[in-house]
């Protein structure tokens, strides 16, 4: 059993009681809500005649259903309009702070909370969205919950949960040029498998992780869930503190030093005990692309799609399903696969640094004529910053469409969807069957830089070839 890790310390601090069945009642320090998984929870509160216990511990924004072309109200899509109206009404009625469209702070919930300084080390954070693990980048214990648990957090600020085991994933050395956090996390998921994280929290550590910026760390923790780990985290350090400093909701003045002292104290101790430790060499990671229908089915850009015999018996069934669905053959290259759509955005890779990297590749280049390319900033703040830096113009000049913030084609709950069996090069997080809105649409996950390279060439490309002087 793990001891003295950040996870143990934060869990113990937030434990309210041991429940009769053996699980723990855990206090949730910060609860984030959005329009998709909260309406039924508010409905259940009403049915049970309960109030929101601590409205000041919940923050709302709208992201999944928002259109990214025309955001004027009412939305063209009646169902989407009904969902945003329901959230507006619930927040008003229960006095919950809501960052609506046009507030300057709306966006994907996992982009917005860190930007506002809401996400801080040592907190427990829950949200009805599996990518809540993103916030673990700050040394918080953050995990996705379902709607019944959203109801429980609203009503009690606590949930019933079994304590997780802790696996440390130690990443040695440094990522090489043209290789990004997205490549590293895809590599990790490929090595460990998509279900290895069940029952675990992942602690990402080591020189390669220390080297990453906060936004890159968010990309890593974001995709913990794709490796089966509901929660992923990184111990806080100077980069964490300086990212938070001066944000809207950051501790101010005399409280700042207090905060830092406490944040320092909740890091995993040097003599921490883990349930499991995995080590890997980050310098060996190549730009990575998925070829299948799970985020674990990925290869380096210069590798071949595996033969069935190369895979463990457990992975063969889903591989066969993937070959059939994707129309790829075992042993084929992924490089030079033609793409129809290029999408940059999502809670995985829709932040300002992601847009900067992609814009650098796209500068003075044109999107291939048959490719539809669009970029969806992760939040209003990201969009404003990008415009100040002129990134929107670089995207537009290259032929990318510049859109308004939201989740967009990561899960295609708005009108941004693949058509038929189109192939998308996507900076998002899931390549599941039908994920991007068409029941036979195909998704290749990769870093934003790789999406930009694919957009220019009209086919899967090695972004490092754009970087040679």
């Amino acid at each position, binding site marked *: 059993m793990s001891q003295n890790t950040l996870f143990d310390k934060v869990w113990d601090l937030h434990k309210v009681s041991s429940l009769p069945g053996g699980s723990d009642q855990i206090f949730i320090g910060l609860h984030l809500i959005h329009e998709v998984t909260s309406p039924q929870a508010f409905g259940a509160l009403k049915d049970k005649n309960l109030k929101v216990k601590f409205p000041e511990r919940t923050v709302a924004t709208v992201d999944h259903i928002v259109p990214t072309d025309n955001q004027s109200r009412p939305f063209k899509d009646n169902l989407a309009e009904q969902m945003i109206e329901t959230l507006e009404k619930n927040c008003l009625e229960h006095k919950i702070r809501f960052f609506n469209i046009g507030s300057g702070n709306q966006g994907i919930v996992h982009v917005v909370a860190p930007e506002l300084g809401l996400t801080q080390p040592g907190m427990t954070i829950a949200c009805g969205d599996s990518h809540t693990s993103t916030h673990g980048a700050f040394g918080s214990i953050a995990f*996705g919950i379902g709607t019944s648990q959203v109801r429980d957090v609203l009503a009690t600020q606590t949930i019933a949960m079994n304590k997780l085991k802790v696996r440390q994933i130690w990443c040695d050395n440094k990522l090489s040029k043209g290789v990004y956090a997205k490549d590293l996390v895809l590599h990790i998921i490929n090595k460990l498998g998509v279900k290895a994280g069940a029952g675990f929290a992942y602690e990402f550590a080591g020189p390669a992780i220390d080297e990453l910026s906060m936004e890159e760390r968010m990309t890593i923790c974001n995709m913990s869930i794709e490796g089966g780990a509901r929660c992923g985290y990184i111990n806080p350090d100077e980069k964490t503190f300086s990212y938070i400093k001066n944000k809207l909701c950051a501790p101010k003045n005399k409280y700042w030093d207090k905060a830092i002292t406490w944040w320092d104290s909740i890091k995993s101790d040097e003599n921490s005990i883990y349930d499991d430790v995995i080590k890997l060499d980050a310098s060996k990671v190549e730009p990575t692309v998925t070829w299948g229908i*799970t985020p674990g089915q990925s290869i380096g850009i210069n590798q071949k799609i595996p033969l069935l015999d190369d895979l463990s018996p457990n992975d063969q069934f889903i591989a066969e399903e993937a070959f059939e669905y994707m129309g790829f053959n075992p042993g084929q290259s992924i490089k030079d696969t033609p793409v129809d759509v290029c999408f940059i955005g999502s809670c995985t890779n829709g932040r300002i640094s992601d847009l900067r990297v992609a814009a650098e590749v796209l500068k003075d280049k044109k999107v291939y004529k048959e490719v539809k390319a669009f970029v969806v900033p992760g939040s209003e703040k990201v969009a404003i910053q990008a415009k100040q830096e002129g990134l929107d113009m670089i995207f537009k000049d290259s032929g990318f469409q510049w859109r308004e913030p939201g989740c967009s084609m990561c899960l295609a709950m708005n009108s941004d969807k693949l058509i038929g069996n189109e192939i998308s090069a996507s900076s998002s997080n899931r390549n599941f069957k*039908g994920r991007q809105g068409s029941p036979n649409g195909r998704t290749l996950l990769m870093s934003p830089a790789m999406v930009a390279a694919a957009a220019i060439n009209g086919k899967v490309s090695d972004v490092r070839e754009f970087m040679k002087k």
Partner: protein
Amino acid sequence: MKSKFTPPIGKITQINGQCISLIGNDIDTDRIIPARFLKCVNFDLLGESVFEDDRETLKGSHPFDLEENKNATILIVNSNFGCGSSREHAPQALMRWGIKAIIGESFADIFYSNCIAIGIPCFTLSKKSIQEVQNNKDNKFLFLEIDLKNSLAKSKDLTLNLEIKESSRKMFLSGEWDATSTLLENEDFIENKLNCLPYLEFNSPIT
């Protein structure tokens, strides 16, 4: 269409019913209920759309479309079932279609806790046992009697030792799987916790 849906309530000790097999690893919640069906403010109509895209692709031969399965209540699955999105819409859709319990090789964490929270017990069995059940020639008429108290499933000629997290099993037997009221019993502890969290001292409330 099936008979009117009534949600489970109170103690869950016994589930008897016909099995329906769904073969495949890593079946994610986007497949169980595609995102376009999440545009709703209640769960009422989700049962009709469960596995919509997979069913459409198989044009009538999906297990959820076979006449012989229409009264099935116990779903038999393989490994990492319910991975991906945290959408509770997935188990809600299964439940509204008629599923009352799931037996599988393994489940994704969030899906598992969503099932427990809405009263669907999820049991695990070894890969070998699952395959035995799924390959059973009489499978389409395999009826199981699941006994939560002893974690056993029995049919005419089959006895399976099911595994389930002890905390979940106890919650079903006591009826406390619907956690809100249990959590609320500790109201004083919750207030105390709020007052002793260091970060609440150095952060001003969000208003």
